[in-house]
């Protein structure tokens, strides 16, 4: 097997919301086609870090970053990088399903239409492929013109994943994608993550320790803006090196 290359890398990354130092000197390298889970208590910086990976924090007043974030070796905060181009590469799925109040079909092809693709056959093909990848096709193929809001929460979340996949990114960021879902929908999302990692580099923020254990190859533990420990998920959940990691994952924090 050939060695996987660093898809995403942060070097000496610091982030601030005004005076608040949210991320402190983060150094981490994530392999391509792997799942990396970010864990840590609320306010530890994991979501901030996830959002810096596709510059979602750019519009927050007072937010600034120092250091580098490299995508395939290229600094995503460089002046010549266009944010819309970056987000084609780095898709995102949020905690609460957020479909547009449009039809299922329109939701999936939204990104493509914005890119100027109008040909119906291309859009239809892309929609089917993305919905299949998101394991939703069989459930919605007969009602593509129906409102996305009529779907169940779990289906809506998979629709959002399909929407993210339609523009063929190489990285998928997921911010607690299953925390608002029931166990069956959660299992479907987790299975999906398992499938998707054959083609995508996935970074997932989760508060569910077992979920991190089930879906990820690597786990990073954040605490008070610091990256405390980053290791293979197996090692993290059997013999963590850092005592703070151990206290957190065994539920003995504070």
């Amino acid at each position, binding site marked *: 097997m050939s060695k996987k290359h660093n898809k995403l890398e942060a070097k000496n990354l610091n982030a601030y919301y005004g005076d608040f130092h949210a991320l402190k000197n983060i150094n981490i390298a994530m392999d391509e086609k792997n799942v990396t889970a970010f864990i840590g208590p609320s306010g530890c910086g994991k979501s901030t870090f996830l959002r810096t990976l596709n510059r979602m924090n750019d519009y927050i007043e007072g937010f600034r970053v120092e250091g580098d974030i490299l995508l395939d070796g290229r600094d995503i905060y460089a002046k010549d990088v266009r944010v819309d181009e970056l987000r084609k590469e780095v898709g995102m799925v949020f905690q609460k399903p957020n479909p547009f109040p449009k039809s299922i079909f329109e939701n999936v092809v939204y990104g493509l239409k914005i890119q100027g693709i109008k040909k119906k056959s291309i859009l239809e093909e892309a929609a089917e492929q993305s919905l299949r990848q998101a394991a939703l096709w069989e459930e919605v193929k007969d009602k593509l013109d129906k409102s996305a809001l009529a779907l169940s929460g779990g289906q809506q979340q998979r629709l959002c994943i399909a929407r993210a996949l339609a523009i063929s990114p190489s990285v998928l960021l997921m911010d607690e994608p299953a925390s608002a879902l029931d166990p069956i929908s959660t299992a479907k999302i987790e299975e999906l993550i398992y499938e998707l990692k054959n083609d995508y580099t996935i970074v997932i923020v989760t508060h569910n320790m*077992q979920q991190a*254990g089930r879906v990820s190859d690597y786990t990073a533990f954040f605490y008070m803006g610091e990256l405390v420990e980053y290791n293979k998920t197996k090692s993290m*959940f*059997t*013999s963590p090196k850092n005592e703070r990691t151990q206290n957190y994952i*065994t539920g003995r924090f504070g």
Partner: protein
Amino acid sequence: MNQLDIELNRIKTKLMEMWDLVEYQLQAGREAMLTANKELAEQVVKRDRKVNQFDIKIDRMCENFLALYTPVAVDLRLVLAILKINSNLERIGDTVEGVAHFVAKLDAPFNLDLLEQTKVVHMYDEAEKMFANCRVAFINNDTDLAKQVIKHDKTLNKIYRKSDKIMTQYMTAKPDMIAEALAILSIIKKIERVGDQVTNIAEEIIFYRDAKVVKHKSDKKKKKKEQ
């Protein structure tokens, strides 16, 4: 204390109760052997059922704990270690029961000279010491003591290895004592097993505390030497 710790403590307490019972069995077995006390030996045999009940109970407690608390890291290692310590304690119980069976068949106490020559009593004492130290190592999370326990097993193995030769000579010299000699040889074998089982428990303590696997270490060393 959080609920997870309360549950873990309940399992630990149950394990310690079993540990005490097995220690008592070991002591009673020794006493019965030395005094050819049939009644005591029969009690040991009977009491092994209690040990078995502990085995089942602790298995069930661990199963429930794993299902309900999905422990990780040190908690997971502790439960895995308890499961194995539990089976080893149960086996030590069985082994002592085996010794008691031999004693129950005795008509008179063992020949003193034979006991002396084979060092079986000394061996029994050492096994009891190992067992007691191992218990302390578990209670105090003392992996250094656990390592000493593992080393201690060599003393037992040494006595065991020499026993064959001693017995052969003895039986050749005194053919009328063959039955008794064979009984002692069987007991020696059983005590040697106790040493191994205590060693296994000590290895689990090290796994639980240090997240290190030390069992079958000598196998690895041997392999390296062969290469």
